[in-house]
């Protein structure tokens, strides 16, 4: 297991002194998904992958929304924040842009990330906030027991669409590219090597990395993706148009990294402005600030302006 080049993606994050193993990343919480849920595979892949980061556990944070997928953070012995529905990218933006020393991961679902949270997602992407955003796409609302989601196919019969959904689904990769994300990828729960390969590249990318993970929900949408589907590895490009065109292909389904391009990340830009302010104006002095440009002094009974 080789360590990720700590050059780009994790540059401001301190390195771990000791070598960590998969087991170090397992929390003491009982994992609670249905038997056969694809989330187990993703969790195992993640736990297996995290040691590669070479980052101490306490520098890693998982932020999630609400959904089956969003329970993910409980099972990792890192810092974790299981927040509210759809808001993880927003919360993580505050964390990542003020704490460049952390490796921040967002875990979301197709409902959490594309339905209620769609706006926060595209804004985090355009801002290039230093996050690794993993969208577990099972094309269904799992936690609420099976309604169609923004990635369910037209005609899908679910509890809330008894004669078939009429909503044209998003292609999450196309949408992310439409938001000009700097790193966009797709992978599958059932192919651990591929999944870990994509995680590796996502982590290496500094800025917002968006990864759609096809995930099977055996209870409410079994077989939405299967090993028998045809998948083809895309070629990574930094050209947005090309990547978008690649995302439109459907048979075989393209997987892999569609786009990977280097742009300053949001925290860097923010820190730069703060740094430059100190350089040009000096460290802020509170007394000077409170005084402002225009003061006067009152001594016993008299006023004189300064």
């Amino acid at each position, binding site marked *: 297991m080789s360590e990720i080049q700590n050059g780009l993606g994790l540059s401001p994050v301190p390195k771990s002194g000791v070598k960590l193993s998969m087991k170090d990343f397992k929390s*003491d919480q009982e994992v609670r998904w249905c038997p056969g849920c694809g989330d187990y595979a993703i969790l195992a892949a993640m736990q297996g992958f995290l040691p590669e980061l070479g980052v101490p556990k306490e520098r890693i944070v998982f932020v999630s929304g609400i959904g089956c997928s969003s329970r993910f953070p409980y099972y990792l012995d890192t810092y974790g924040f299981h927040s509210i529905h759809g808001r993880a990218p927003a919360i993580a933006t*505050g964390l990542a842009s003020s704490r460049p020393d952390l490796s921040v991961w967002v875990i979301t679902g197709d409902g959490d990330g594309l339905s209620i949270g769609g706006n926060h997602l595209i804004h985090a992407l355009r801002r290039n906030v230093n996050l690794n955003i993993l969208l577990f796409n099972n094309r269904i609302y799992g936690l609420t027991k099976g309604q169609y989601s923004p990635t369910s196919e037209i005609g899908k019969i679910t509890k809330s669409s008894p004669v078939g959904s009429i909503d044209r689904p998003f292609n999450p990769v196309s949408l992310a590219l439409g938001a000009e994300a700097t790193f966009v990828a797709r992978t599958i729960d059932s192919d651990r090597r591929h999944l870990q390969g994509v995680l590796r590249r996502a982590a290496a990318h500094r800025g917002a990395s968006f990864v759609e993970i096809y995930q099977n929900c055996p209870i409410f949408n079994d077989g939405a993706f299967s090993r028998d589907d045809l998948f083809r590895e895309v070629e990574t490009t930094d050209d947005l148009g090309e990547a978008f065109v690649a995302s439109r292909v459907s048979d075989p389904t393209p997987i892999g990294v569609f786009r990977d391009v280097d742009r300053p990340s949001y925290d860097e830009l923010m820190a730069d402005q703060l740094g430059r302010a100190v350089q040009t104006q000096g460290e802020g002095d509170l007394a000077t600030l409170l005084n402002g440009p225009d003061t006067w002094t*009152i001594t016993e009974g008299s006023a004189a302006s300064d």
Partner: protein
Amino acid sequence: MKQVKQLDRVIVRFAGDSGDGMQLTGDRFTSETGRLGNDLATFPNFPAEIRAPAGTLPGVSSFQLHFADHDILTPGDAPDVLVAMNPAALRANLAELPRGGRIIVDTSEFTSRNLAKAGYGASPLTDGSLDGFAVSALDLTSLTMAAVEQFGLTRKDAVRARNMFALGLLSWLFGRQVTTTVDFLNRRFAGRPDVRDANVAAFKAGWNFGETTEDFAVSYEVKPARLAPGRYRTISGNTALALGLVAASKRAGLPLFLGAYPITPASDVLHELSKHKNFGVRTFQAEDEIAGVGAALGASYGGALGVTVTSGPGLALKAETIGLAVAVELPLVVVDVQRAGPSTGMPTKTEQADLLMALFGRNGESPVPVVAAASPSDCFDAAIEAARIALKYRTPVVLLSDGYLANGSEPWRIPDVADLPDISVEFATGPAGPDGFLPFSRDEETLARPWAIPGTPGLEHRIGGIEKAHGTGEISYDPGNHDRMVRLRQAKIDRIDVPALEADDPGGEARVLVLGWGSTQGPVAAAVRRVRKTGGQVAQAHLRHLNPLPANTGDVLRSYDRVLIPELNLGQLATLVRARYLVDAISYTQVRGMPFKAAELAGVIQDVIDSE
């Protein structure tokens, strides 16, 4: 030299079209007034955010300044001097001017077209409707044009300097300095020398006009007020609030992170804070209010002082995330600069109608402390107090301001940095105890939980909005645990250390207490003063902490026969107080988008006294 008359207080109102620069003029006059040592209070009153067509009533913008040789409490009810730059400005403001008041108008604007736009049939300057007022009808436009001729400006730019002519005239009238305003204009228009010179010239011309023409026989002097010794500046509520947040960050030793989405009348807090990057202040203009508070909470989670600032509609949107902050028990300051509602309402107008939303506007039992600023400068202290509570008790705190405080200004005695409270907190440090780290164990005194920020080795843990087991913080659906946690969260807020409520009753014989909160402090105090002047016995008390209420509140209220609560809503504090103390408080309410007038309120108080 002309005659100089002494006055103890004056109220001046500048009124003109939105494009006429009345706010700048007022601000400038305010600075000079502060500098002279008067006490003062201001009330800027502008139309909807969008510009109405020039010359119409909805386009009128005004700025009122009250200054005095003694301490004053409000921007004043009715102006003594009205400067009206056009017919609409005259028409919109005349009703509030008492007979005998002085009016200065620009005659060149009283064209039939402009009169029609303002809804005048005939010119009020000639039809006798201004009889009984002291009218100075001056051709400000021509006077200004003449003064700036030499700089070769366009007509439009030249006419724009009218407001400086007016400022010059008023400056003469009230004995303000010339040099400081000239300095200011030089700084302000440094980049455009022709405009700079024209403005300076117009200003000086206005001053000289007062000094030389016979229109103005006397000038006035208002002696400095006996303010406490110290260094002063004028400050608006929004600026004070922003500075208070920076001060809180420094005194807490934590970086400040503001997540905000622009909204009237709160945006200026964002603007102000975005200037102070050399204080390590991060401002994040979010995609919406929810992202604003979310990012602030994320930053708090990471160990910053997370703050979000908004107005009513935005607070409504933030409710769910504030609830999350209640559940995960992290510090967060949520500022609501209230405006007139419901819905979009009247964004530029003031109101106090978000109190019950701040208290109850979240699902489930979701208690949050509420602090309300009492005056523009008090926004500074209130911000520090809100941050103190948030940090000490690991809780979101709602800080209420309003449009009146936000834009109004007053002299502020600048505090010594060393005198500001130390509000530093300690993060939890590893390693965890023998039972592992217990993120939902509690401090015995405050009931606050430990704050362990990412990056702390050995304290890795998970938090979330689902109910948590006491101590461990693990997800728990246990009925007894839930009941316990709900009551613990409530108890934590209930036991916050807030100062006792103090009633002011110099005579000691009052049977009636007037209870205020937030921005009614000034008007209530002014009204009480009036009542007392005419011999009325009345006590007053002011609530700055709305949740928890001071422990002695019930005792204070019950020691009077009648409690009167004036509010700019339909009786929200009254609802709270009645529910809590079963005191039959009398609610006096106005929802006009405007602060109370002291005279009106004095009448109401007197009526209650008389009905005793």
